[in-house]
């Protein structure tokens, strides 16, 4: 296990960058708030898993990656897609089920894919993306590309056998995978201590000889710092790295969750540590953000979101005649 730990509440060192983090986190937050509304309005259907509260993780980790690096995420991946560079239009239209969506409306909220930005899903099977990430890293390494594959998953996924198999294979074959555990302490209604016999998750990495670090996932600066160290180490050694980001989801698991399994106080306690609010506070303390700039930022984001909603509303449905297209690449095969 690695001995370096990112310290919380580091001073902000780069104005541009800090403002960028804020913008990204806010974009995710507001986009998802709007999505929840649209879900209630039945514009969006199926499962909708919100990342609200966890934005610092996705933003921090994605920032540490190069554009050519790859990412595999879960069904809670709107944030990842946005930070990787996918436009809100494509995501919103996808959730509307429109043909202009990133996957022509085939995937919906849980399955955002982006070839240009090397986002390989959007995987709705818990743990299902881990082996794929290992394979992507293998492909990069065998083809001499010095790239990193970042695989995000929840702490709940760590109980699945595939986590274990994937960590072992990546370590054994020395593959450049950044394993990012988004530890929000719950897998649906199952608390970490009812899911894992050892709740210090970095211990799992030790069993495979994988360097590991735990970081405050509510502090985007800390996440970025940790992710950069991790990525640098991976690029230098090709060996995998395990990064645990301790965070919390402020919203229910999906739109159907009565949240019987946790107390209002616990949720409120975590909300006090909102990654966006605390970054805003720090930016303000350092004099890098005033009310007006914040309002402007909010406004820009609101505009971006309305445009995306508009785009989705205006877009066409895929013709039903296309249903069997893409079962196979060759349109002749059925």
């Amino acid at each position, binding site marked *: 296990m690695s001995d370096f730990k990112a310290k919380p509440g580091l001073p902000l060192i780069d104005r541009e960058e800090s403002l960028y983090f804020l913008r990204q986190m806010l974009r995710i937050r507001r986009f998802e708030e709007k999505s929840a509304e649209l879900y209630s309005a039945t514009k969006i259907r199926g499962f909708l898993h919100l990342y609200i509260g966890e934005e610092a993780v996705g933003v921090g980790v994605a920032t540490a990656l190069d554009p050519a690096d790859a990412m595999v995420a879960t069904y809670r991946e709107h944030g990842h897609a946005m930070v990787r560079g996918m436009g809100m239009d494509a995501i919103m239209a996808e959730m509307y*089920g429109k043909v202009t969506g990133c996957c022509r*409306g085939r995937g919906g909220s849980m399955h955002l894919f982006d070839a240009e930005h090397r986002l390989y899903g959007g*995987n709705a099977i818990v743990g299902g993306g881990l082996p794929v990430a290992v394979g992507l890293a293998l492909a990069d390494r065998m083809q001499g590309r010095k790239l990193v594959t970042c695989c995000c998953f929840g702490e709940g996924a760590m109980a699945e056998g595939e986590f274990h198999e994937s960590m072992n294979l990546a370590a054994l074959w020395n593959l450049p995978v950044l394993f990012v555990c988004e530890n929000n302490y719950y897998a649906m*209604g199952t608390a970490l201590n009812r*899911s894992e016999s050892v709740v210090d998750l970095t211990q799992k990495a030790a069993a495979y000889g994988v360097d590991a670090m735990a970081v405050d996932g509510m502090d985007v600066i800390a996440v970025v710092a940790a992710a950069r160290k991790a990525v640098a180490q991976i690029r230098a050694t090709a060996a995998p790295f395990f990064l645990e980001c301790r965070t919390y989801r402020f919203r229910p698991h999906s739109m159907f969750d009565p949240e019987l399994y946790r107390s209002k106080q616990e949720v409120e306690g975590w909300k006090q540590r909102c990654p966006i609010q605390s970054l805003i506070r720090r930016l303000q303390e350092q004099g890098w953000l005033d009310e007006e700039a914040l309002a402007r930022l909010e406004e820009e984001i609101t505009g971006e979101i309305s445009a995306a909603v508009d785009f989705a509303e205006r877009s066409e449905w895929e013709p039903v005649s296309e249903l069997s297209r893409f079962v196979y690449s060759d349109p002749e095969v059925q």
Partner: protein
Amino acid sequence: MTGQTRTITYRDAVCAGLRDALQRDERVFLMGEDVGRYGGCFAASKGLLDEFGPERVRDTPLSESTFTGAGIGAALGGLRPIVEIMTVNFSLLALDQIMNNAATYLHMSGGLFNVPLVIRMATGGGKQLAAQHSHSLEGWYAHIPGIKVLCTATLEDARGMLWTALQDPDPVLIFEPSILYAMEGELAEGAGAVDIARAKVHRSGNDLTLITYGSCLYKCLDAAEQLSATGIEAEVIDLRSLRPLDEESFLTSVARTHRALIVDEGWRSGSLSAEISARIMEKAFYELDAPVERICSVEVPMPYAKHMEEAALPQVATIVETARRMCGGG
């Protein structure tokens, strides 16, 4: 049994069946992801943790293969486990335990060890959950000897099949179409265990046999009403048990109607509907006035968009149209 009924949901019926089982037999326990504190991913076990405690209503970690296998072990050890796999989509992770252990123990041990295990899981599409969350694989599971496979379409069956399955000395898989959890209906106050060996005729008719199971039952019943309006009387059979198949039920019916249409939410090729068609071919060929037909899901990973999902799933209009054509109409 009193003649009184109550209005409840399919979800409540499942829950009542679970409660009943936990009350009646202390060897029974329920385990699976989020069956306890969360109340079940479809809220079908809400309240049971408080009522029966964490020893008998066990939240498991995300590890389908192992908690299913642990169910097998617990059954071998004298308990009567009910393993809940949230949905059939995740059961693929447990398939090795189901096929190589649960289904083989008895035969492989020359009769020494039977596995009295019940595995419940939700199944089916229709909720815009896309390619990885919309499988209908119950008919596919019915390929495996050594297990029994049930699919509960009605409140009675949702309420009553569990107890019958728990009496079975061998592993029983119960599939619950997730689209039905919210369905409301009347259930007799005294409803309890039901037979799991026989299919059920939900509607009689002499012109055509509609053979189905699960949530397609309601599509067939709707279609039958529409057909009736045009003078075609369809018999509607809910198979209920997919393995073993109560082939007598549909063979008898076909011997009378001479026409059969199978409606099955599984992907067409290699679906249960193929087996039924093949059996009619083998055992009622000379009774047929027209070839047996099938309406199944289009063979695509399920798309998210509503209109595309609807196009992929069997629909009432197609059933009506096909049935009319088969009966020489339009």
